[in-house]
């Protein structure tokens, strides 16, 4: 009841100075627009860049690392267990790279309810023969369909049909940079030499663009069976098992669990790509800082306008008080003015921010490194709109607080006597 009256008075005061009000609201609108557009764009870029790495990286990698055994025989013997042993020149005990019992491990993983998918992989270092020169490179033996489903493999293959790898026997997908070095076109046959000096011809079916040029200069892909054939290994030879989880945050804990369970080495994505998260975090932080700065500037605009309004309306405030409005009522009137500027400006800002994001989304962004991206990436995350609107309310509230308090403290006696 009282509130309705207050809103009514606030509205009349606002409309009486609608030009100033509009300027203040436009200030808020502008900052919220920029805030939304900036964050959507930044977040879109972040997701794109994260995607470059994270989409293609296994959440957990299971492998056999060639490294010295920490359980040395002398430590296991009862006689020497309690003494301190100086051991010199400890060497890696086993040179086996393949995962022991890989078939059973994959079977267990596929049944685990936390696991979204499993993709086996073979890493084979080879030489590509180009006339007299040998170019070092790596052939990854992959399960094409699993790799496409879990790690978006298809998106990085020019022409987008990675299944050729499966359908054409003894075929290879070359990294773009590697193909250029070898001067190999699609349909050509390249010679590879393994570390055990065996030669093998492979047919090029597609090119691969990862977006990371250094990788494209050495990477190439073939099917698992092809790589097993090249290396002369049996069909259970697997060097890596890549696991994708439903919840990426479980990766470190599960990696430890699997390391124990399978007696193998594991690596989780957080450990492997720690620096990547930091980059995303800093970019996000900067966008938030810029957005908040804009809002603070808009807040000062509101503060100024309210202050001016209070000086102008000194008489009106005095008369409101004389006719029975309390300091709190006056305070509420001016808070209502501030908040409605914030609310109106903020809502317009959300709208314009959304429109602006749509515009950014239409700007062409074509880069050789990212074959599937055609326009600038934008993340339409409702969280940004929520933060934007709450920020606009909070800033205007803070901006209105001091002037409203001043207004509520105006002493009508002094104002009226002063005439």
């Amino acid at each position, binding site marked *: 009841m009282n509130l309705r009256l207050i809103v009514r008075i606030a509205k009349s005061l606002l409309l009486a100075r609608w030009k100033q009000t509009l300027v203040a609201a436009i200030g808020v609108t502008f900052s919220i627009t920029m805030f939304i557009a900036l964050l959507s764009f930044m977040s879109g870029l972040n997701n794109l860049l994260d995607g470059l790495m994270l989409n293609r990286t296994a959440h957990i990698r299971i492998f056999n690392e060639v490294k010295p*055994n920490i*359980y*040395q*025989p*002398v430590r*296991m*013997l009862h006689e*020497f267990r309690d003494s*301190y*042993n*100086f*051991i*010199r*020149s400890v*060497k890696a*005990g*086993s040179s086996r790279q393949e995962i022991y019992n890989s078939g059973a491990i994959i079977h267990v993983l596929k049944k685990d309810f936390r696991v979204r998918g499993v993709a086996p992989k073979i890493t084979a270092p080879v030489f590509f023969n180009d006339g007299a020169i040998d170019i070092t490179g790596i052939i990854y033996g992959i399960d094409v369909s699993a790799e496409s489903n879990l790690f978006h493999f298809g998106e990085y293959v020019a022409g987008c049909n990675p299944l050729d790898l499966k359908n054409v026997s003894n075929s290879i997908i070359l990294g773009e940079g590697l193909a250029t070095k070898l001067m190999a076109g699609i349909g050509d046959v390249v010679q590879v030499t393994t570390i055990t000096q065996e030669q093998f011809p492979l047919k090029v079916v597609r090119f691969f663009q990862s977006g990371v040029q250094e990788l494209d200069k050495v990477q190439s892909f073939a099917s698992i069976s092809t790589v097993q054939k090249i290396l002369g290994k049996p069909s259970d030879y697997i060097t890596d098992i890549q696991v994708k989880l439903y919840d990426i945050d479980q990766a470190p804990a599960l990696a430890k669990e699997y390391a124990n369970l399978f007696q193998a080495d594991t690596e989780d994505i957080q450990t492997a790509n720690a620096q990547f998260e930091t980059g995303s975090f800093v970019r996000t932080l900067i966008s938030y800082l810029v957005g908040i700065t804009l809002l603070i500037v808009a807040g000062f605009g509101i503060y100024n306008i309210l202050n001016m309004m209070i000086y102008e309306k000194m008489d009106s405030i005095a008369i409101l008080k004389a006719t029975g409005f309390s300091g709190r009522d006056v305070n509420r009137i001016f808070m209502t003015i501030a908040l409605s500027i914030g609310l109106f400006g903020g809502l317009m800002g959300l709208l314009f921010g959304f429109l602006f994001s749509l515009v950014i989304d239409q700007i062409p962004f074509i880069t050789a490194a990212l074959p599937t991206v055609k326009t600038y990436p934008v993340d339409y995350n409702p969280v940004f709109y929520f933060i934007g609107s709450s920020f606009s309310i909070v800033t205007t509230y803070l901006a209105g607080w001091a002037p409203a308090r001043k207004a509520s403290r105006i002493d009508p006696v002094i104002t009226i006597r002063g005439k």
Partner: protein
Amino acid sequence: MLNPVAIIGDATNFLIEMKVDENDIARIRQGQRVLYTMDSYKGKVFEALVEKIEPLMEEQSRSFTVKAVFVTRPPTLYPNLSVEANIVIQVKEKALTIPRSYLVGDSMVKLSSGKMRKVVVGLKDYQKVEIKTGLSESDKIMESAR
């Protein structure tokens, strides 16, 4: 590839072959104890004795081949199984060791009184150092500030 048609050998009499780096070969003597584990017998330690040091160094790996005979051995063995072995060069009872980070320079320690003292060090690795003389069990030392 050229594969042998057959390999002839005594399937009951086995030897352990170990690769020893040229840095360490001077310490190896005939008759030293060898402790070994095998991938095929996980968690068990067996013993052997150094029998022979091949005098010719393998140039590719800069290491010597040392052969050992079994003292204790697993019940069944096959040719070319892999082994991880430690050769016991010296056993010292009641040796005095200090953490490596307490050693200042090559042969100094800092006493808790702040004075520096020269010591004679013996064996050392990245964690611990053996002190041969110059320090007793009752001395208090401080970590050297870098």
